[in-house]
């Protein structure tokens, strides 16, 4: 996951924003304590969303209290306790996914990127070994998704759905693990699937211009070649796919009985995903400088 699933700040209430930031801070702190301070570099808002969904489905209510942080000692921010292992699990997920992302970057990056990857490899590898042992379920899920993704990309006629399936199923698994016996299990899976699919396709749409130049795999590019659509329509058809997926997730959110944080999740799914889609497809130059929140 690559930092696409973010909240839409202008429409947020202060209390939701505080919770959002609180979850981010807690996750960041947990990464530093559970691994090394270097692990904090890999945290993105996607994982905050994952943590928020998991927290809002757990029985016990998480407790927030204010505390300071060494990166910004003047401002106090909310810290979350009583999370029933959600934060630890998310921290493990951050590390495991970062490791595979690093490998992926190394495989299809240019010289400079490769150098950065080699520089980062050893610390990430050590953290990954730790995370793998701590949380084998997450490791299995992510590893399965990565290997399926590779197989898909080798396939000649890989459709958009097929390409997105591995990442989407991985997020569905991560989100719904532990809720197998609940009545909302199917809804939660579908919700996770569609959000994961959206995130994967957003990444593909964002990288489209670069991939077209370098010739790397991109689901939209394959699709356009097969369909014989002109290059000008790339963005239009990508937008249709992304909107459909985001719309599906937005429809599914009403079927899940979230215990708390519902306004926050609604903001992310209803407004955040849509505005991010528009930002990435509208003017690609602007998105590079845009702050996530």
């Amino acid at each position, binding site marked *: 996951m690559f930092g696409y699933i973010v909240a839409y700040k202008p429409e947020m209430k202060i209390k939701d924003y505080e919770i959002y930031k609180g979850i981010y801070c807690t996750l960041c702190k947990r990464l530093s304590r559970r691994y090394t301070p270097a692990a904090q570099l890999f945290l993105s808002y996607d994982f905050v969303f994952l943590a928020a969904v998991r927290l809002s489905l757990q029985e016990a209510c998480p407790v927030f209290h204010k505390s300071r942080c060494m990166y910004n000692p003047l401002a106090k921010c909310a810290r979350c306790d009583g999370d029933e292992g959600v934060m630890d699990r998310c921290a493990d997920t951050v590390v495991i996914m970062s490791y595979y992302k690093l490998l992926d970057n190394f495989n299809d990056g240019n010289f400079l990127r490769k150098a950065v990857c080699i520089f980062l490899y050893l610390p990430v590898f050590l953290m990954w070994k730790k995370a793998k042992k701590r949380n084998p379920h997450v490791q299995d899920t992510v590893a399965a998704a990565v290997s399926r993704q590779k197989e898909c990309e080798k396939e000649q006629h890989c*459709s*958009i*759905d097929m390409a997105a*399936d591995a990442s*989407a199923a991985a997020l569905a698994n991560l989100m719904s693990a532990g809720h197998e016996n609940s009545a909302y299990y*199917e809804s939660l899976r*579908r919700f996770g*699937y*569609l959000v994961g*699919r959206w995130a994967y396709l957003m990444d593909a749409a964002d990288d489209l211009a670069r991939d077209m130049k370098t010739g790397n795999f991109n689901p939209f590019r394959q*699709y356009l070649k097969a369909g014989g659509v002109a290059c000008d329509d790339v963005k239009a058809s990508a*937008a*249709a*796919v992304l*909107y*459909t*997926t*985001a*719309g*599906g997730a*937005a*429809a599914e959110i*009403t079927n899940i009985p979230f215990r708390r944080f519902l306004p926050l999740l*609604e903001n992310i799914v*209803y*407004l955040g995903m*849509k505005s991010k*889609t528009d930002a990435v497809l509208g003017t690609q130059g602007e998105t590079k400088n845009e702050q996530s929140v």
Partner: protein
Amino acid sequence: MNNPYEVLGIPEYATEEQIKSAYRELARKYGDENAGAGIPAQFAHRKMQEINEAYDQIITNRGASSGGPRAQSAYYNGYSDYQDIREKINSGRIEDAQTLLDGIPPSARDAQWYFLKGNVQDRRGWLEEAFKNYSTACNMDPGNPEYRAAFDAMNRSRSGGYATQKQNDTGCSGCDICTGLLCTYCCCECMGGDFIPCC
């Protein structure tokens, strides 16, 4: 009765897949919809019964020996087949529905097939293929409201027109104003006041 394998024209060691495809092949030839094209209806009907019995017998025998469930649903009976698939979709058995749908040969796929296939893919989250199948279903049977509704719903969200806000009715409607006036009137009159002077 004849040997059921002979009726279907397959060897006894045939796999389940072969049995099903042989059955479908024959059912298409002698089935109710297709009878009359060179084959007398009476004969076709009797033949169809024989084929059904033979198929049933083989599947029952095999089911008993292997302990597996009876694959009765593989019947190729036009609409009843789709009914079964619809039930499977509704009860959430998406994989089963998909297997059954894929079992129907391409030549026999009609608008309903494309609609159901789209529905299955929609459930799985394969929204692009679902959209393609919905639009094929709509093109094949433009008058069908069910296919049209599914297609339109998807088309709306493709252009970004999906719901981005929860529907909430907390505003003040005409009814609320009326109720408010009535309450005020009742209270005022009870207390001896005169909210509306004319009555």
